[in-house]
């Protein structure tokens, strides 16, 4: 997180006023979105917000387009969505929303006003932008379900750096506050990735809401939100593999599977897991990988694995087999899998086991960041 230097409110009691409304939403929806966006910050700090309906509030909130009275004109649809000013007198603390955007209350249509407002109020309270892609104060808009939104750890640290923690006792002690979601750290030796796959030479490591994408040149993998690439995809996926045969990447979550062609989601997906031929008893796949030599895809489910014939599009007979039968020494659950330069890598927890597919011998036991340099 970063802060505006020497800009904070000298009192924890901050007033706000909604000066006008966007035609995109009802008055009640705007009021509710603004109220909830402020409560995001109040929940984790001593800050308390009071709405006033006339006169000058600390945070004046308005919707405008293009030149709207400050020296920072908006730019029409998309591009810049809103801006706000650091705490201070006059325009200080004020938040302006670009009414050439289409704001929404709860759908993924347009830009969710609650999310945009919560970000801008971070500025109104003294936070500048964060380069943590998981932070609310990251400059780029990314949709998150408002119903399950929880202020990320980086933002909590930021606001508490300025104002300290919320000193009020939790009014619902039997309902503890959710732990702020943190951004995964490639240097964490205990990191357990959800899934790994290649994609036309790149490597992708999925974890929670995030993915690291490494290029063939081995440059430092880039961390971003899954939804930055594919807003329709869920977080916390279970498995992923790239089929060299169909030039598609398949991503699995519970009983659903999505397909990517390049970076585009293939129409007609998600499909049900069983459309691949897996038995109905299989509700979830733990890991998947495509074997270039045999042109078979292996699906790992608990202690077993299935073999899928990509060319014939059907499951091979004689499966499932026990994992440690096909991969001697692999006695713990496979949580992710892929092949790189002909070697097979089976992840289990924070370890990665390297196998030769030809001999099925375990060659090395590696750390989880072997392909994910810290």
């Amino acid at each position, binding site marked *: 997180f970063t802060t505006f230097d020497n800009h904070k409110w000298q009192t924890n009691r901050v007033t706000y006023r909604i000066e006008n409304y966007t035609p995109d939403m009802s008055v009640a929806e705007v009021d509710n979105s603004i109220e909830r966006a402020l409560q995001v910050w109040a929940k984790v700090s001593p800050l308390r917000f009071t709405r006033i309906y006339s006169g000058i509030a600390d945070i004046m909130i308005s919707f405008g387009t293009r030149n709207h009275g400050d020296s920072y004109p908006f730019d029409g649809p998309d591009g810049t969505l*809103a801006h706000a000013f650091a705490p201070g007198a006059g325009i200080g603390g004020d938040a302006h929303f670009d009414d050439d955007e289409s704001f929404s209350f709860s759908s993924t249509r347009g*830009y969710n006003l609650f999310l*945009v407002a919560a970000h*801008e109020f971070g500025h109104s309270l003294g936070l500048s932008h964060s380069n943590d892609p998981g932070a609310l104060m990251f400059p780029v808009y990314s949709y998150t379900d408002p119903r399950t939104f929880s202020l990320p750890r980086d933002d909590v640290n930021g606001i508490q750096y300025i104002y300290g923690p919320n000193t009020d006792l939790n009014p619902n002690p039997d309902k503890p506050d959710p732990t702020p979601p943190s951004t995964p750290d490639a240097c964490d030796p205990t990191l357990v990735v959800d899934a790994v796959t290649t994609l036309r030479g790149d490597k992708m490591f999925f974890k929670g809401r995030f993915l690291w994408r490494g290029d063939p040149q081995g440059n430092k993998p*880039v*961390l971003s939100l899954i939804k930055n690439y594919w807003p329709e995809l869920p977080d916390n996926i279970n498995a992923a593999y790239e089929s060299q045969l169909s030039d598609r990447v398949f991503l699995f979550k519970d009983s659903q599977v999505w397909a990517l062609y390049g970076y585009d989601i293939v129409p007609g997906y998600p499909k049900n897991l069983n459309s691949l031929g897996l038995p109905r008893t299989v509700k979830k796949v733990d890991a998947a990988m495509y074997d270039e030599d045999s042109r078979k895809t292996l699906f790992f489910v608990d202690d077993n694995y299935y073999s899928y014939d990509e060319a014939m599009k059907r499951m091979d007979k004689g499966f499932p087999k026990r994992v440690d039968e096909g991969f001697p020494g692999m006695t713990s659950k496979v949580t992710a899998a892929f092949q790189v330069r002909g070697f097979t890598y089976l992840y289990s927890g924070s370890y990665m086991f390297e196998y030769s597919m030809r001999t099925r011998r375990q060659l090395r036991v590696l750390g989880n960041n072997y392909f994910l340099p810290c």
Partner: protein
Amino acid sequence: LPISPPSEEDEALAETYLKRFFNLTEETGPVFKRRPSQRSRKVSEMQSFFGLKVTGTLDAETVMMMKKPRCGVPDVQLSR
């Protein structure tokens, strides 16, 4: 992503983006041939901030990031 040189439109977008969010200013005074231009340095600064590969040039991924909807507050604090 396809490797294609940035279009004029991309160049203009980058110019506006870097001025607005990374304090790119008009380059005045002597230009040292060997030193990367201020513009290239600002592109690198932006790429580093967004966790992109730092190339100092307008590659496709950098242009894609510049086109994403975002907040209008600068990413670097302007000198007052």
